[in-house]
């Protein structure tokens, strides 16, 4: 992993078309600005994780898994 220090107002560039600027730095979070071509998807990593998990969850369940889920509950 490439690691570097930046101050608010400073940027780094990725390839020819992507620029990431540190707008503000606080003790436990930083505000970033990203300039990139429209074709490049930019999301928080946890959003991507959740998207994949949602798709998996949606198709993981059918009638038999519902029945097996319900058997786990004390009646």
């Amino acid at each position: 992993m490439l690691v570097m220090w930046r101050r608010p107002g400073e940027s780094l560039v990725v390839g020819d078309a992507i620029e990431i600027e540190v707008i503000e730095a606080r003790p436990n979070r930083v505000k970033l600005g990203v300039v990139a071509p429209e074709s490049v998807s930019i999301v928080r990593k946890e959003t991507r994780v959740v998207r994949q998990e949602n798709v998996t969850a949606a198709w993981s369940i059918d009638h038999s898994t519902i029945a097996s889920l319900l058997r786990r509950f004390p009646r």
Partner: protein
Amino acid sequence: MPRMPTRFFGSVDYEPDSVFHFPSGIPGFEDQRDFVFLQVPQSEPLMFLQSLASRSLCFVLLPILVADPHYRLNLTPEELFELGLPDDREPAIGEDILCAALICVAQGEVPTGNLMAPVVVNLKKNIGAQVIHGDSGYSHRQPILFEENALSCS
């Protein structure tokens, strides 16, 4: 009363005012904005979030306090705004809002609940969102063990 096709329960009647609008959709299914919570007494405590527009899309959820009786939600001011909730107090689960975890059942594995990103709906304004709390310490694949004592806290 209008009817809708559902993934698991055939065609069902639903009240128009039981439709929840998700302004941002649900990640992975951003084109689906309107959902109905199906009431299925014999399947409690499971909940079913059925897309109004797409019969094949139906999420299975568990009330968050069944998944984890000690769950802490901590909505941000931005999330309170998106959900149309007042920002001067914590919304009460079960009164102001409904909060539930999406369940995933991978083949041969223990069912898991997404406690990192619960679905939250404003019960009074029928607005919903999946809130993503990446820094909450909760897992998006929390094994659901269904302990007997958990049910008494739901």
